[in-house]
C-alpha cells in the first residue's frame, strides 16, 4: 500500500523533470542560435558602418577637391573680383560654404553622472541657445557639425533622437553637444554665459565655453526654395 502511494508522486516528479530537461535543452539551443544571429547581425551592422565611414571619408575628400577646383575655375575664368566677393557673401548667408573666424565653442554634457540628477538637453533648449547666439550677432553657427541655416529645423525623431537639418546629431562618444559660433567673441561669450548657461547648469548639465578660432562646415542639404520658373 505504501509503495503504491509513493509511486504516483515519483512518477509525477519524473515527468516534470523530463519535461523541464527537454525544455531546457531546447531553450539552450535557441539561445545559442539567437546569440549567433545577434553576433552575425552586429557584425554585419559593423561592416556596413565601416563601409559608410569609408564612403564618408571619400565624399568629404572629393568635396574639398571639387570646392577648390570650382574656386580656381571661377577665378581663372576671368569673373570680376567684385562679382566673386558678392558670390562669397551670398554663399555665406545661405551657409553653403565652409567658413572660419574668431568665435566661441560651447560644449554641453547632459549625461547622467553619479550623485547628480541631470535633465537631458531638449530640442527647445537647442533652439533657444541658437536664438541667443543669433541675438549676439553670430555670423555662422553649427551644432555637432550641422550648419544652422535659415531653413534649419530641430525636431525629435522617436523619443530621443534629435534631428538637425533632418540628420541625427547623436554622438556615441565624447561630449554629447558641441556648438560652434563665429562672430564677436566678447558679445557671444557674454550673451551665452549670462542668458543661457545658468539655466542649463541648473538642470545639472556641465557647460563650458571657450574662445576659439572656429571652422564651421557648410550646409549640405537642399534649399527648400523652388526655382521661380518651376512654379
Amino acid at each position, binding site marked *: 500500500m505504501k509503495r503504491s502511494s509513493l509511486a504516483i508522486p515519483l512518477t509525477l516528479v519524473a515527468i516534470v523533470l523530463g519535461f523541464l530537461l527537454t525544455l531546457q535543452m531546447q531553450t539552450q539551443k535557441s539561445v545559442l542560435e539567437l546569440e549567433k544571429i545577434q553576433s552575425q547581425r552586429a557584425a554585419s551592422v559593423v561592416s556596413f558602418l565601416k563601409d559608410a565611414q569609408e564612403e564618408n571619408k571619400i565624399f568629404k575628400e572629393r*568635396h574639398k577637391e571639387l570646392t577648390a577646383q570650382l574656386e580656381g575655375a571661377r577665378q581663372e575664368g576671368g569673373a570680376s573680383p567684385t562679382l566673386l566677393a558678392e558670390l562669397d557673401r551670398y554663399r555665406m548667408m545661405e551657409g553653403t560654404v565652409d567658413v572660419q573666424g574668431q568665435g566661441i565653442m560651447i560644449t554641453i554634457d547632459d549625461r547622467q553622472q553619479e550623485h547628480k540628477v541631470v535633465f537631458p538637453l531638449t530640442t527647445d533648449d537647442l533652439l533657444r541657445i541658437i536664438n541667443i547666439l543669433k541675438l549676439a550677432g553670430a555670423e555662422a553657427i553649427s551644432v555637432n557639425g550641422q550648419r544652422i541655416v535659415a531653413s534649419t529645423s530641430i*525636431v525629435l525623431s522617436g523619443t530621443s533622437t534629435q534631428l538637425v537639418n533632418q540628420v541625427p546629431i547623436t554622438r*556615441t562618444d565624447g561630449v554629447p553637444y558641441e556648438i560652434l559660433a563665429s562672430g564677436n567673441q566678447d558679445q557671444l561669450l557674454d550673451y551665452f554665459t549670462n542668458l543661457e548657461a545658468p539655466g542649463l547648469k541648473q538642470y545639472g548639465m556641465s557647460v563650458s565655453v571657450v574662445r576659439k578660432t572656429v571652422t564651421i562646415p557648410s550646409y549640405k542639404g537642399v534649399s527648400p526654395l523652388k526655382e521661380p520658373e518651376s512654379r
Partner: protein
Amino acid sequence: MELPKNGKMMLTVASLILGMLFVTLIKATGTTGPVARTDTTLASLVQIGQENDQLKNDLAKLQEEMGKFQAGQNASKVVLEQLEKSKRNSGLTKVTGPGIRVTLDDASNRDTSEQDIYYYLIHEEYIRQIVNWLWNGGAEAIAVNGQRIMGNTEIFCSGAFIQINGTRQMPPYVIEAVGDVNYLQSALNFYFWDRLGEYQEQYGITRRLEVPTEPVVIPEGKIQQFRYTEPVKEAK
C-alpha cells in the same frame, strides 16, 4: 507520508536538479547583453548614412557647376547664374506663392492676477516653435510681421515687444509661409499647436490658421555683414 530511505534521496536529488534547471532557464531568458551594443552601432549607421546622402547631393551640385566651366561656358555667366541662385536661397529676393497664414495675439480679457498673466500673452517661443515646424514641413520662405526669416534672424522677447531682425514687433504676430499648403498645415499638427488651442479656449489668446486663396507674398530680407568670418579657401 512515509518514504523508504532511497526514495527520500531520489526525491532530494530530483528536486535539486529541478531547482538548478529552473535557475538556468531563468538566466537564459534574461540574456540581453549584445542587443544594446547593436543599437548604438545602428544609430551611428543611420546618422552617417544621412550625412552621406547630404554629401552626395551637394557633390552633385558642385559637379554640375564644374561641368559648366569644363564645357567652356563663359565663367562670368556661370558665376552670375550661381550668384542669382545663392541670392535667392539666402532670402534676398521676394517670394510669392501658395501658402498659409498663422495669427497669434494676446488675450484681450487679461486677468489681473500676476501669476496667470503668462498664459494670456504670446511668447517668443511660440513663434520660434511654429517657424521651426513650418521649416520642418518644407516651407520655402517664412516671414513674421513682414520680417523675412533669414539665417541670422533672432526672435527674442525683450519685455513689451519681440525683437525680430533687430526690429520691434508687437502683437498680433502674423506668421506667413510659402510652400505646399497641405504639408504646411500638417506640419502644424504637433503638441505645441494643440497647447496653444487649449490656451485659446481657457485664456482667450488668438490662434488662427488661414489658407488664403490669393498668393502669399514673403518680402526679401536684408543683406548680412560679415566682420569676423570668411570663407575657407582650400589650396588647390
